[in-house]
C-alpha cells in the first residue's frame, strides 16, 4: 500500500474501502522496518494503536464515524502529555515520567478518533538538539539519514516524510514546526498564538509557544488543526472565538490575493541557498500567473526579530528550568543546558527592552499587513546539513526566518518548493494575519496541487 494523505485515507475509510485496523498494521510495519534508521519514535504504542483502530473500525461499520480524523494513524511529539503513556521531553530528567492526564490537544485528537502509534523524538525540552548525550538518539532525515531534520519537532518531521504516520503534533517556539517541515519536505503550520491550547504540553517559553500539526500536505494540516483548535480556559492565552472551517477555502482560486515578499530576510539579512531562492521565486511566479498581486515589502532586519525572540525564549525557559538546573545540572544534555544558561547574562532592563521592542515589531508587521493577505519568506536557509556538522550555536549565529512570526504570533505555514543540489527538500514560508489560517491553507494547497513535489517521497519510504 502506498502512503496515503489524510484526506485520501478519510475518503476511503468513509466509503468502507479501507480498514482502520489494516491501515494501523501497515504503519506499524513501516515503523518496524524504517524507524531503526530514523529514530523518529521514542516509544511505539502498538497495543494502544490496535485498540484505537478497532474502535474506529467498529464506528466505521456501524456508520458512526466521528469525522475525517477517525481511524487516522498519528503520533505525538514527546512533550505532549499522554495519560498512562511515557512522556519524556527526550530528556533524562523525565525518562520515567508517565502523566496521568492527556494534553488538551491530545484529548481532542483522541476524541476525533485518531489512532495513536506512539511518541516522537524532539530536541531536549524542545530546545536542546541535535544531541548525542541524551537517553535516545536524535531523529534522522528520511531523505538522507546522514542529515539533520531541524528541530525541535524532529521526530514528527521524519515520521511524516517517511510515511510512518499520516500526521503528528509539533510545537513551535522559534520555528520548531516549520523548520522540520522545511527540511523534511512536508507541510507544517504554526497557528495564530492562542488558537490551540498549550495545556499539557511541556512548555519552553510561555509567550512564544504554539501547538500545531505537521503532515504531508497543507490540506492534511487543515484537517488536523480542525481537530486541535478550540478555546481552553486552562490556557490563559487561549482565545475564545468560534473555530472556523479550516478547509473552507481549499480549492478556491488565489486570484486577487495580495502577497508581500520580505525579500531582504532571505537575500541580505541571511542569504538563503540558490535552490531556496529559486523555489520562492518560482512559487511567486505561480501566484502571479494565477492572478495574485505580488510586491516586495520591507520590515525591520530579521536579526531584530530574532534577537527579541531569542532573548525572551531563553529567559522564559530559564525561569521554568532554573530550579531543576541548579539541582540536576548533570542530567541535562549539553545543548539545552548551555543554550538556556545564557539567560544568566540577561538583566531585568534587557527583558523590558525586549518586551518594548516586541511591541514595536508587532505593530510594524500589523501595519505592513494592512493591505496584504500573505507575507512570503524562506522557512530555512537551504537543504538540511549533515547532522554531525550542525554547529552548537546554530540557533544564534544567523537570524531565523521563522522567529518573526513567533514574536508577533501571526500564523505561518512551511511547504515544500522542490529539491536542492543535494537532493534534499527546500521550502517557502507563507504567513498571514491573525486567525487567517483558512486563507493560508487555500494558498498553500493551490501551490501544492499545481506542482509535482507532493508526488515524491524519500526513496526509503517508497
Amino acid at each position, binding site marked *: 500500500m502506498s502512503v496515503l494523505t489524510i484526506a485520501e485515507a478519510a475518503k476511503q475509510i468513509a466509503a468502507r474501502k479501507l480498514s482502520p485496523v489494516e491501515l494501523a498494521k501497515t504503519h506499524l510495519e513501516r515503523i518496524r522496518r524504517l524507524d531503526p534508521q530514523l529514530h523518529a519514535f521514542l516509544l511505539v504504542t502498538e497495543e494502544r494503536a490496535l485498540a484505537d483502530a478497532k474502535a474506529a473500525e467498529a464506528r466505521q461499520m456501524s456508520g458512526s464515524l466521528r469525522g475525517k480524523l477517525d481511524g487516522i494513524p498519528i503520533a505525538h511529539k514527546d512533550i505532549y502529555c499522554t495519560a498512562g503513556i511515557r512522556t519524556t521531553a527526550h530528556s533524562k530528567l523525565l525518562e520515567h515520567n508517565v502523566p496521568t492526564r492527556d494534553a488538551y490537544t491530545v484529548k481532542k485528537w483522541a476524541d476525533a478518533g485518531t489512532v495513536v502509534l506512539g511518541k516522537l523524538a524532539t530536541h531536549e525540552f524542545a530546545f536542546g538538539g541535535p544531541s548525542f548525550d541524551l537517553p535516545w538518539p536524535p531523529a534522522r532525515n528520511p531523505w538522507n539519514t546522514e542529515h539533520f531534520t531541524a528541530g525541535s519537532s524532529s521526530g514528527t518531521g521524519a515520521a511524516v516524510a517517511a510515511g510512518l504516520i499520516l500526521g503528528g503534533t509539533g510545537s513551535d517556539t522559534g520555528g520548531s514546526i516549520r523548520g522540520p517541515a522545511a527540511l523534511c519536505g512536508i507541510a507544517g503550520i504554526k497557528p*495564530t*498564538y*492562542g488558537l490551540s491550547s498549550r495545556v499539557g504540553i511541556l512548555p519552553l517559553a510561555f*509567550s512564544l509557544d504554539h501547538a500545531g500539526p505537521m503532515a504531508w500536505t497543507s490540506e492534511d494540516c487543515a484537517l488536523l488543526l480542525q481537530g486541535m483548535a478550540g478555546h481552553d480556559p486552562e490556557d490563559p492565552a487561549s482565545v475564545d472565538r468560534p473555530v472556523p472551517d479550516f478547509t473552507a477555502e481549499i480549492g478556491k482560486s488565489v486570484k486577487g490575493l495580495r502577497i508581500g515578499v520580505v525579500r531582504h530576510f532571505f537575500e541580505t539579512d541571511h542569504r538563503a541557498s540558490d535552490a531556496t531562492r529559486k523555489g520562492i521565486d518560482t512559487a511567486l511566479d505561480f501566484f502571479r500567473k494565477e492572478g495574485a498581486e505580488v510586491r516586495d515589502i520591507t520590515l525591520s532586519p530579521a*536579526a*531584530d526579530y*530574532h*534577537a*527579541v525572540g*531569542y*532573548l525572551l525564549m*531563553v529567559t522564559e525557559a*530559564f525561569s521554568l528550568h*532554573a530550579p531543576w*538546573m*541548579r539541582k540536576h*545540572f548533570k542530567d541535562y544534555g*549539553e545543548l539545552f543546558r*548551555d*543554550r538556556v*544558561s*545564557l*539567560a*544568566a*547574562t*540577561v538583566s531585568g*532592563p*534587557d527583558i523590558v*527592552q*525586549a*518586551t*518594548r*521592542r*516586541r*511591541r*514595536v515589531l*508587532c*505593530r510594524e508587521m*500589523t501595519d505592513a499587513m494592512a493591505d496584504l493577505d500573505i507575507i512570503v519568506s524562506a522557512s530555512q536557509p537551504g537543504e538540511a546539513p549533515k547532522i554531525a556538522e550542525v554547529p*552548537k*550555536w546554530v540557533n*544564534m*549565529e544567523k537570524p531565523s526566518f521563522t522567529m518573526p512570526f513567533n514574536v*508577533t*504570533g*501571526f500564523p505561518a505555514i512551511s511547504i515544500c518548493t522542490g529539491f536542492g543540489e543535494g537532493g534534499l527538500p527546500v521550502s517557502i514560508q507563507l504567513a498571514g494575519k*491573525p486567525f487567517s489560517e483558512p486563507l493560508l491553507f487555500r494558498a498553500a494547497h493551490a501551490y501544492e496541487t499545481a506542482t509535482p513535489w507532493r508526488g515524491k517521497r524519500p526513496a526509503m519510504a517508497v
Partner: protein
Amino acid sequence: MSTIDEAELKAMLARAGLPHSPEQLRELLPGAEIFQRMLARVNEPLPREAEPALIFDVEQK
C-alpha cells in the same frame, strides 16, 4: 562592540546558581559572545511607540 570575558561569565553563572565546570565555562563562552551582540541589538534606542508595551496581544488592539 559588546563582549563578555570568562571571569564575567563565571560570575553571572554563579549568581544564577549554575555550577559550570571550568571546561564547561570555556565551551559556553563563544555562545555568550554571540548572545551579547543580540542583547546589544535589543537595547538599541526605541521610539516612543514602545512605551505602552507591557501586554502582548496578537491582534494589537
